[in-house]
């Protein structure tokens, strides 16, 4: 039966697993308040989406 000849070094393991990273989520800027917000989502800091106030945010 075929068997690996050498132990896989930590480096090799880590190089392989580096490809399994989760991609960083996209970050945009809220056109209303300028804070960081995700595209296609209601802005968490001002509660605006597509130019209208969708919900009220506590620390406003």
């Amino acid at each position, binding site marked *: 039966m075929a068997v690996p000849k050498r132990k896989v070094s930590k480096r090799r393991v880590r190089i392989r697993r580096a490809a399994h990273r989760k991609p960083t989520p996209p970050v945009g800027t809220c056109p*209303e*308040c300028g804070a960081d917000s*995700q595209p*296609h*989502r*209601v802005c*968490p800091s*001002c*509660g*605006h*989406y597509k130019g*209208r*106030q*969708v*919900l*009220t945010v506590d620390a*406003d």
Partner: protein
Amino acid sequence: MRHRKESSRLGRSSAHRKALMASLVCNLIVQKRITTTLTKARLACRLAEKMVTVGKKATLAARRQAVAELRRKDVVAKLFDEIVPQCQNRAGGYTRVLKLGKRGSDSSEMALLEWVDVLPVDKTVTKTDDTAS
């Protein structure tokens, strides 16, 4: 076979899922807008739209059909008297799902489910609010 059936079953039995959907739509009718996970919101909006379509018939049979689905007479009355009249100018697309980002506990994408034509109960939110904050 369940080939290419893409809708989520939410890890629930058919009866459990139907009960959950009835509950979500009842809350949407009473509260006018609900916050839930994106998957649940998208499934609930299907039933909600169907209920409005049933409501537009405005017959006793339609009313009973809605009660059979939603399981609450008081909520069906609210649907027929409050929600449906405001949806008359629209031929579908009565609900809107807005993404809210992921919640902290399990990183689930959350969403806001609301009526397009019905204003939310919360008086601080208006459809034509243009004051910058």
